């Protein structure tokens, strides 16, 4: 089993937003599990770090929360994307793709080295 990677600074928010976009309204535990699954269990996510990140996104107005019932009839706090959140997700996705593309060019084995 390979070593798990820590979550990179600044990417957690993006993952959370994307997860909520994909899954619809979801509680914190669900978001954490989903991120782990999506990463193919390669990310080591300390569930506890998720909550300050959720609070921050909520304060920024990207997501909104509401108490509801989980699939197993447990009381849980559900988070959903706001319009601002959707826009933020779009913007950050673009940024991120741009960054990875640039990095990919740097890291690609170059055919025409001097």
């Amino acid at each position, binding site marked *: 089993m390979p070593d798990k990677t820590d979550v990179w600074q600044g990417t957690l928010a993006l993952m959370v937003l994307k997860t909520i976009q994909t899954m619809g309204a979801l*509680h914190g535990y669900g978001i954490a599990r989903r991120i782990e699954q999506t990463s193919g269990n390669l990310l080591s996510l*300390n*569930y506890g770090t998720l909550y300050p990140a959720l609070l921050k996104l909520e304060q920024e107005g990207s997501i909104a929360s509401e108490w509801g019932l989980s699939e197993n009839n447990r009381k849980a706090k559900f988070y959903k994307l706001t319009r601002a959140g959707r826009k933020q997700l779009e913007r950050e996705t673009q940024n991120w793709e741009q960054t990875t593309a640039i990095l990919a060019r740097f890291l690609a084995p170059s055919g025409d080295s001097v």
Partner: protein
Amino acid sequence: MKVLRTWLSRLAGMFQSGRQERDLSDEIASHLQMHIDDNLRAGMSPELARRDALLKLGGIESLKEACRDRRSVPFFENLVRDVRFAIRQLRKNFGFTATAILMLVLGMCASVAIFAFVDAALIKPLPYRDPARLVSVFESIQEVPRSNLSYPDYLDWKKLNTVFSSLDAYQHVSFMLKTPSGAEKASAARITDGFFRTLGVTPVLGRDFRAGADLPAAPRTALLSYAAWQQRYAGKPDVLGQTVTLNGDLFTIIGVLPREFHFAPAEPAEFWTALHAGGGCDLRRSCHGLYGVGRLKDGASIQTALANLKSIARQLEKMYPENRDQGAAVAPLSDVIVGDIRPILLVLLAGAMLLLVIAAINVAALLLVRSESRRREIAVRNALGASAVRLIGQFVAEGLVLVAVGSALGLASACGAMHLLVRLVPADALARMSYLRGLGLNARVMAFAAAISLLAALLFSITPAVHLSLSRLHQETRAGLAEGSRGSSANTWRRVGSKLIVLELATAMVLLVGAGLLGKSLYRLLRVEIGFDADRLVALQVSSPRSSYTNDAQIIALERQIVDRIAGLPGVKSVGLSTDIPITSWGDTTWFRVVGRPWHGEHNDTPERDVSSAYFTTIGAKLLRGRYFTETEDASKPRVVIINRALANQYFPGEDPIGNQISGLSTPPKPVEIIGIVEDIKEGGLDTVNRPVLYFPYNQRPENYFILMVRTSQAGPSIVPALSAAIHQINPGIVTAAGASMNERINDSQSAYLHRSSAWLVGSFATLALLLGAVGLYGVVAYSVSQRTREIGVRMALGAERASVCHLILKEAGRLAIFGVATGLVASLGAATLLRGLLFSVRSWDIPTLFAVAAVLAVTALLASFLPARRAAAVNPIEALRAE
């Protein structure tokens, strides 16, 4: 936008922390529950399921803490918590808190109240347009460097000068105002037509004087002061066009001056009338009754204005013999308005600031001692992981709470002190100090108070924080835990503390010396030789209408009738009269020459008074040689004069003046024989030098206006109403005013109340400073004793006598006191030099005062350190050692 939103929600979070906290706990609980459910479903044992869920979540407390920090503003939250804690701490140490706050309140109250006066008098701009360009213009003679202008001279100056864009003149006068209930005295000003335009003041109601309104041909018009409009006309706008009878002439009211307008040299004038140059004085070049006020042209300075006026004065001197030796003087208008009070206010402000410094030092010292005794607590908290910032935050919070409470109370008491101080100024003087109407807690005063509070907050939060500076804190944590409140820093505190005390004692010394000098000066002033007996002597101004008493015979008959009537009143011992009240001014002057001596046209400007035959005996003057006037000496008899000692010394040195003749400057001379010499009577202010004075018999030159001087058998001015009533029985049209005992007049005279108020205020500042200094010294010595209990125990166990222990402590205190007094002595010399201008017949280098103050300070210091020294000597060596 996002940032703003975040902060708003965080700020909001501060006020709903309870609900959010519960919300978070619920969320975590639900998270754990769902995770456990999943784990159970995956086949874990319930115990393992729970453990795994907890493990995956991480530390719950740190999670909560992270959310808490994000949810609100931790800095503010901590501050609020620190402030609450500080308030609890301060309430627990009530003695400390009360002392610290009391000191702050004292310092704030004194400095803010005095600053409010300084602001009203010196900082607040005068209510004129561009007041810095306004100057006062005077004529100048050797005896009176700033004397009045004559109207013809004023006209020439106005015409010939090249430095003023406008030049106007004013005169403060009293008019007889006709009211439905009889005649009364009204304060007024006569001004030239452009006076208000020069000042840049426009009436709030009606209009200003038009050009030419001050000429004799123009109809008589007047402007009302705002106060007169409110009081006499109930603020009704229909006052315009109404007429008022002043000195028998009809004036039309054409306007009302703004509420904020004041002009101290003519206050408290109710009626501002256009000067109608007419009558005797206005038209004579030798009669000086006006003051000038000019607006400098752009580019002109006071120096160029003075040079210009002086050259005009020289031209006039050549043209008119009356103008011989008449120079010119120019001063900023603000000098004339607040010149007398400026040095005193500045001294008082300095005194109040010194008191504030002492108070601040004392509070800082108290905080230091407190931080010292909390060393162990701080060490424990540090060891338990409190961050440096949080520890310092504690002291900052305490400083802020102290300063906030102290400032609020200080400001409130300053407000009270201001009104109290205003009441200390005699009512007449207050009416003249019209600029004090602006006194109050305005923006500038508040800013001053805020600046003091800020400095104090800074000082009080930084002092203990620096004292327990963090590097040392770390080093000392262990020492602090091990040894409790004693570390090497105790010595540091003793060093810092003792420096503060030396500073404090020195400051107290400066204030005490200032108070001593001012007090001595007041004492000398009130005991200055006045040349008459002021006890049970009452003065009353009397003016009879010119229309009813036209010739000398009528006026003398009236005077005799009044004197007879008054003399018959119960409680009246004798009655005299004069044309001027003593202790008022050296004004009302005449020119004279000695007959039979060469005379080259010099003026010999000399005060003159017309007095009745009983005047000198009534006021208790001392006849040096010759005789007083007799009642029968009137215009039908040869003219006679009595001179004072100063005149005899100046004009007849080494010869007998009696029998010599003087004369006015007329040619040929009209001789007047000198028949007596009286001891100098203080005609002007108490602090002025005696000048030569001429006394003529009233019956030879009777006037409609005179001062009745009444010697009574009982003290006080209670007889005044009876005097007025008796006079009104003779003729209700006669105006009586300003009845007061001479003692009152002396006490309320400008030099007396200025001296008195400064002596009392600086005296009370000094007393407080002495008290605070003693408390500070006591604190330092007592703390040092408590720190050295073990050392003292050891010394005593080794055989030291109690006396020698006592000695040890007293020596330490004595050293501080000596340093303090020595530093104070040097500083006082500097301060006393600055005070020189305010002192009356006391040198600033007054050895007895310095000695007395040093002695008072030394004795106080001894007393303050004696108590802790005795406590040190009472230490039981066994207990002191066992306590370790």
